[in-house]
Structures are given as C-alpha cells and as structure tokens.
C-alpha cells in the first residue's frame, strides 16, 4: 500500500485526534508537555514512546517527522536525528509526517522574528529568542518555515531517540535477567553478550513503554555520529522517481467529487452578482457554491472531474465589488515613493548616531541609489489544492500544508467549531516556498465539502487561479545612501525601505483578533541585521498598505534587502575604487564576523576571484547572513551582443553544523536557481485591479538551458546552527547584478534585471 494510502486509512481510524494523558517524556523544553498525539493514533500492537517514536510488535519502527517535506529533505534529516540516537539505520524505519498536534510546535521558527541580528549573543537578544520559544509553544505553532526545522529538531529529536533507546535497554536487561552493561545494541536489536540471545525493539516495546524515561539526556558526541554529518538518501526518493501518489493532488477517496474555485481578484473584493447558467450547462458540473471567508470571496465549482470543474469555472459570469483605490502597478509605486517621503514607521539595528550625521554627508563623498523589486508569486509546481470531507461533526482535510495547525484553527473559526474536530493529514508538498503556510486552499475546500457532504471533494486550482491568487512577495523600494571617505571607507550607511508589512497582511486572515506587536522585522531583514563594521548605520522602514495580499516567499525580506544591500555595497566599493571583495573584508573586522570573512575568502578562492577574464565576462560577489547561515556567492556572466549568459556560480555557506552535506548543498543550489529565476523576468503587475500574469507563459522561471554550473562548499565556523532552505536565495540576485556591472559597466537597480538587459 502506498504511503498516502496508509495515511488515508489511518485518518479514518482517527489519526490526528488529540487525546488527554499519554506517556509523558521528560525531554520537553518546558515543564508541562503536550499530550502525546500518537496515543490516539496507535493501532493494535504499536507502542508510542514519545511524539516522535513508535515501535510495533513486528519491529516496524516509525519516526514522526512533523514538518512539511517540500523538497528540502527535512523528513530525512529529522529522521536521521532520531535514528542516530536510537541506533537504527534510515532504511529500517518508516518515516511519517504524523498528525497535526500542538505537541509538534516549532520553537525555532520565530527566533528570526526577534529584532536582533543572528550574531548578537547579548543577554537581551537571548532573552528575546527565549521568549519567542515560549510564544511558539503557547500558540502550538506546528509550522514549517524560516529554514528552522533542523535547528528546532536538533536537540529534541535526538532526545526522542535517546529516550526510547534508554527504556528499551532497561527492558532488555529485565528480559534477559542481566545488567545493561552486558548488552549490545545494533540495528534495532539488543543482544545479551553472555547468552548470545537477542530481542528486537519490537519484542521489547510494550515492556519498555512501562519504564520511566530518562531524566538526564546523554546524547552522543558529534565525533561518534554514524548517520548525522553524512549524506543520506531521501527517505521518499523512490516515490519521487516512480510518479508516487504522495502529493495532495494525488489524494483519491471513495465517492469523491472534484472541484475548483474562481476567487475575487484579491482578498477584500467581494462577490456582487453572478450568473451560473452557462457553468451549470457544462457536462459534469453539478453545483456552484458561494465562498465567503477571511482569506477571500468567490465561487466554488463542484463537478464529476477536475476538467469539467475548470470548464465550469471559465463559464461563470461574475461581477465583483472592488473597494480598492490602488488598481495598477504605477499607483503602487507612487504609494511607495510617497511612503519614503514620510516619517519611518520604525527602525532596527543601527548605531544610534545622531540624525544630523546622515543629513550632513559632504557631496564629494556621498553615494546614493534607489532599488526596486516587484511583487512575486511563489509558483509552486503543484498548484494549490486540498481534499476535504465533512463527516458528522468532523472536518477532514488532506493537503500539502506548511501549517496544519493553522488549517485546523482557520476551518474551526469559519464553521464555529472546535479545532480538535478538524483533522488534517499532511501529504508531501509539490513545492512550498512559503505559499503553503496559507490556509486559503484548505478553507475553500472545506466550504465546498459542506455542499458535497458526506462525500469528500478534491479542490484543485488552475495555474491561472494559483498565479493570480497568491500571497505575494511584496514589491518594495530601497533608498540607500552612504558616505565613502577619501581613504575608501564606508563611514555612513543610511537605509530606507518602503514596503507593505507582511505581518500586517497575514495577521487578519490568520490570527484575527490578535494585533501584531512590535515592528515587522521582515521589512528590514537582510538590511538591519547584516555583519558590517560601519561607523554610522541607520535602517528605517517606511510602511504603506498596497492593498494586495502579501506573504512569506522563500527568504522573505532577505530576498528584497539582500538585493538592495549587496548591490549598494558593490556600488560603494566602486566609489571607493576598491575591489568589491577587499572592500567587504575591510568592513568585517569584528571577531564575531569571522564566518563572513571565511566564506568570502573561500568563495573567492573557488571562483578564482581577481584572475583576468575576457572582456565579455565579469564576476560579481555578494554576501548575506540569513536564517542563521552565512552565504557568499560569486557569479560569472558572459555578455555578448547585449545578451547575458549566467555561466557559473560558486557559493560558500556556513550553517555552523552540517547535518547532511549533500542535502544542504542541494538546498543552496535550489535557493540560487530560485533567486536567479526572479532576475530572468519574474514580476507580478496590476492593471485595472487585475493581475496581468496568469500562467508560466507570462510568469516563468529558469529553464535547463539557462541553468548555470554551480559549485558549493560548506564551512562550520559559525557558533550556532543555521537553516538550509532559504539562505541560498538572497545573495544570488545582487551577485548577478554586480557581475553584469563588472562585465558591462551597466548598473541595474531594478528587478527583474531582464527589464534592462536581455538574458539568453
């Protein structure tokens, strides 16, 4: 039976329904643990040891990896953390996402939301990070994002493996009537050295579960690791080369209906009137239902197959009530320009220098530049979809989500029910990039399921619907100024970013009633928190609402400010008459910036930085610290006949600890190509209240013939662990723009770069 089939069976058996009590294990960060959600899930013969480990009588060892597998390899790396301590190999375990439960809260994800740079280890910064852990636990934020899964799981998942091994060894000692020192343990089997007899974990599981878990965790030293630190095959690899039924869109249930949606052009636009006659005349279309939710308004189409639903959606005639004043992209740029001229909403980081310092830069030493980035869609390969079923008082959802807990709460809120009665089965995700942190696709499916109850319905969006109903990476404007002294030093750096606030957009649709507290760091991430020795730094956010739903897009604010900050550093280096690498190194003198210096030197060595190139070629360099990982890149381009070929990329990254080198490098590679895709032509624009792009013909991404050769090296100098999924993206665009400048002398300050130069 396929893995998805198993999920489905278990879901019907009550997977995900949280129960009280359970086997408390002492490895939580906080005094009172959540109940073990596996107690409700277990089948006959299965023993849950803690929320992450379950062992069956037949020695099937199940590891729960409660984060969304969207390509980043998180199921493999999280399972490896448990397996390392449990002394089992990855090919002998079953790895499952598991139920939605607050027990699986992500304690690391919000750490990035503190207003302190990663390298700041002051008491205040640590206190803020600590309080974010408490907030995460309080909200039960079972989410995947912020490149935080491995950091979050690093201790607790190893402890889960250790705790299970601890009681299994005790059970084995009882079983053989000997002491633990007479036992050996390998591959899920414990052997009594004296008698030579052995017992599997499965044989011992039920006995072991009655033994108190350890109070002290004696985790292995890194030097003793057998699995961690080494490249592992993805646990779902075979499914992914055989067309496996592992994605939300592959869910198939008995008596299932099929549907799609036609939503209002943006959240806030409401349904005025519609004519469904033509839609209902499409063979296979059964019903049209109204959708009115916190995520958006529109119509749902219920049909006997997906294609009929698509045709029905096309045939609908709908009139909308559009209350918005900003109808096209030019108006939105004007709004950002206006915001820039207003007082800032807040500032972060900075040196606290007097305002006068920033307004009294001598003209000969002044440098300034304005940068622009557009709205961007996530464009995951798998369009948004979810399957829903209303079964008595229970709503069941099957979907690829980065936030099953938010799906539960959003649906519970909509139907005014208890979120414990919303059961979410998380499938694998055909791309996430932050898009699947949203609840809209699950919520709309639940609304349609109300009309098909008790039968389930799978609701699949068209690509056009997906592109035009995203929560976009915000468009933003950066006004950057500086002072470069005659000695070639950046003495003053004044950063102003005009942008809408992502948090202000997300909160009303996700946590209505909770007002966002404090500044929205995402507006300035990648600018205020970069390693940089400059005498006077100021970093201010100028907020304005562009009336467009925005959200978390791979690397979030770093994708914006990485481009601004690192383009500006390149411009400042040229103003100073210095080599861009040397210029950076001279502004990275502080001890704690050692990881930045080392990766810059490494990437310079890898790329042959400074060696001569033919006239048509150029190299650009950039460095961004994001999500705890220091990442430097050099890009080499060839520009012949005004056409850019991105020839080669070298990257060096330092996440402190590398748990799986190949998986980590694959993420950096992916982040680079995802980032470069923007430059090649991606933008979402508005005209007459509608998005102008709809499918991959108008919102495309990098293709094979454009893909550069990529070489990556990893260093481990950083004192704390960083993430993998996002840090590859931010340096890619400035490194490319800087390379084009090096090759042509043309400075492009606006994304997509393709607006100003052709790409092959």
């Amino acid at each position, binding site marked *: 039976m396929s893995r998805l089939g198993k999920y489905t069976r278990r879901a019907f058996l009550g997977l995900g329904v949280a129960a009280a009590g359970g086997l408390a294990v002492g490895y939580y960060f906080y005094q009172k643990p959540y109940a073990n959600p596996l107690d409700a899930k277990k089948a006959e013969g299965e023993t849950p040891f803690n929320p992450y480990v379950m062992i069956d009588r037949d020695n099937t060892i199940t590891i729960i990896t409660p984060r969304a597998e*969207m*390509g*980043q*390899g998180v199921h493999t790396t999280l399972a490896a953390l448990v397996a390392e301590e449990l002394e089992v190999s990855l090919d002998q375990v079953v790895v499952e996402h598991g139920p939605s439960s607050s027990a699986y809260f992500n304690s690391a994800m919000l750490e990035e939301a503190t207003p302190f740079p990663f390298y700041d280890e002051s008491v205040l910064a640590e206190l803020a990070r600590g309080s974010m852990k408490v907030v995460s636990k309080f909200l039960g934020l079972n989410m995947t994002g912020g490149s935080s899964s491995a950091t979050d799981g690093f201790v607790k998942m190893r402890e889960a493996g250790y705790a299970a091994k601890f009681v299994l060894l005790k059970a084995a000692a009882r079983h053989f009537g000997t002491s633990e020192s007479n036992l050996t343990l390998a591959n899920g089997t414990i052997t009594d050295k004296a008698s030579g007899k052995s017992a599997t974990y499965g044989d011992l599981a039920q006995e072991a579960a009655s033994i108190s878990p350890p109070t002290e965790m004696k985790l292995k030293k890194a030097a003793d690791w057998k699995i961690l630190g080494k490249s592992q*095959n993805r646990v*779902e*690899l*075979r*499914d*992914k*080369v*055989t*067309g*496996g*039924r*592992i994605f939300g*869109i*592959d869910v*198939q249930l008995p008596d299932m209906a*099929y549907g799609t949606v036609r939503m209002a052009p943006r959240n806030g636009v409401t349904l005025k009137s519609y004519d469904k006659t033509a839609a209902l005349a499409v*063979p*296979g279309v059964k019903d049209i239902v109204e959708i009115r939710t916190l995520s958006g308004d529109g119509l749902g189409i219920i049909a006997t*197959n*997906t*294609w*009929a639903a*698509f045709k029905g959606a096309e045939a609908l005639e709908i009139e909308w009530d559009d209350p918005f004043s900003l109808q096209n992209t030019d108006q939105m740029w004007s709004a950002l320009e206006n915001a820039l001229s207003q007082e800032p909403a807040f500032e972060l980081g900075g040196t606290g220098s007097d305002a006068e310092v920033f307004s009294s830069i001598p003209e000969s030493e002044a440098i300034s530049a304005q940068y622009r980035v557009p709205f961007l869609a996530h*464009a*995951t*390969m*798998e*369009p948004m979809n979810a399957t829903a079923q209303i079964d008595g008082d229970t709503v069941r959802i099957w979907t690829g989500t980065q936030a099953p807990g938010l799906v539960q709460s959003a649906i519970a809120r909509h139907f005014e029910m208890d979120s414990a009665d919303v059961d979410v089965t998380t499938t*694998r*995700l*055909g*791309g*996430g*990039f932050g898009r699947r942190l949203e609840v809209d696709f699950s919520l709309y499916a639940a609304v349609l399921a109300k009309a098909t109850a008790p039968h389930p319905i799978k609701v*699949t969006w*068209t*690509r056009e619907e997906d592109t035009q109903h995203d929560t976009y990476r915000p468009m933003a404007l950066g006004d950057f100024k500086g002072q470069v002294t005659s000695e070639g030093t950046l003495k003053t750096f004044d950063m102003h970013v005009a942008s809408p606030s992502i948090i202000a957009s997300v909160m009303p649709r996700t946590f209505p009633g909770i007002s966002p507290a404090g500044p929205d760091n995402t507006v300035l991430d990648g600018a205020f928190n970069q390693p940089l020795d400059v005498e006077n730094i100021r970093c201010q956010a100028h907020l304005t609402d562009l009336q467009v739903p925005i959200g978390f897009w791979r690397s979030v604010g770093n994708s914006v400010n990485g481009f601004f900050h690192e383009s500006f550093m390149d411009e400042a280096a040229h103003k100073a008459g210095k080599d861009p690498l040397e210029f950076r190194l001279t502004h990275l003198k502080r001890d704690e910036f050692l990881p930045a210096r080392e990766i810059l030197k490494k990437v310079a060595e890898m790329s042959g930085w400074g060696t001569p190139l033919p006239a048509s070629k150029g190299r650009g360099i950039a460095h961004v610290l994001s999500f705890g990982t220091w990442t430097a890149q050099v890009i080499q381009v060839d520009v012949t006949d005004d056409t850019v070929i991105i020839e080669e990329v070298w990257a060096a990254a330092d996440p402190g600890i590398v748990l799986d080198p*190949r998986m980590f490098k*694959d993420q950096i*590679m*992916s982040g680079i*190509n*995802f980032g470069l*895709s923007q430059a090649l032509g991606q933008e979402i624009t508005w005209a007459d209240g509608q998005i102008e792009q709809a*499918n*991959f*013909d108008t919102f*495309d*991404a*990098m*293709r*094979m*013939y454009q*893909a550069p*050769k*990529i070489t990556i090296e990893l260093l481990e100098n950083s004192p704390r662990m960083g993430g993998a999924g996002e840090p590859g993206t931010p340096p890619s665009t400035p490194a490319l723009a800087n390379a084009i400048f090096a090759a042509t002398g043309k400075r492009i300050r606006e994304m997509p770069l393709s607006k100003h130069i052709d790409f092959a």
Partner: protein
Amino acid sequence: MFSKISLTVNGQKQEIEADPEMPLLWALRDLLDVKGPKFGCGIAACGACTVMINGEAVRSCSLPVGEIQGEITTIEGISQGNELHAVQEAWMKHSVPQCGYCQSGQIMAAVALLEENPAPSDEDINDAMTNLCRCGTYPKIKAAIKDAAQTLGA
C-alpha cells in the same frame, strides 16, 4: 452521455466515457486513477504532465483524449515490476528530486530523449529538456541523463 473512447495505457486496454475534448491528463488522473503524470499548467508550458505516445514525449494536459492515436506510456509503465528504468536509477543515484513534483515529467522527457538520441550532448539536453523545475534541480537532471546514457549504451 458521452460515447466510449478506447485507450491503451501502459499496455492495458482501457475504455472510458468522456468528453472527447477532455485533456488526456485528466482522463488519466481522474477517470483511470493514473496519478504519475502531474498537473502543472494546463497549457503545455511546464511538462509536469509528460507521457509518451508511441515512444514520443507529449504534454498530456493539452491533448484532447478523443484524438489520441497510439499507445500511451506513463511513468508507471517504464519500470518492470520492482526493476526501475535506467533513467530512474540514475535519478536515484544522483539524488535528483527535491519536491519531486516535476520529476515524473522530467524522467519521461529524458526517457524519450535517450530513445531518440542515446548519447546526447549538453546542448542536445538543453534543447530536449524544456520541462520546468521550480526547485532548480537542472544540474542534477543533466548529470543523471548522462549517467543513464552510459548505462543504456553499455
């Protein structure tokens, strides 16, 4: 309501009742429960839906099911029981997939390419492999195709 349409999918004769205008992709996925070909765009722009008809790679999202002539092979049809196709083996060896959603289409495009051109150059691969991958696994796809070409040619 609709007349019957006969298809041969992975060597098996199938009969469906469908609007002849329905794209092959949806006939496979929704009517025949063949889930290997994935839906990505519906306009033949991304290739996630790639299958082979008489050995040629085609984008099933844009082919009306009523017009299909020939034998359809989906990714489910290229392996022999537990024994994977050399292209699939190469994909595993190079750990190509990330999210994996585009990969059945990529693999089908690669299988078709290697059947036509057993030793493709970089340029041949660039020309033939036009499928979209949002995870940006292109360098690994290229390496895996070359590896598979060697295996198949050996």
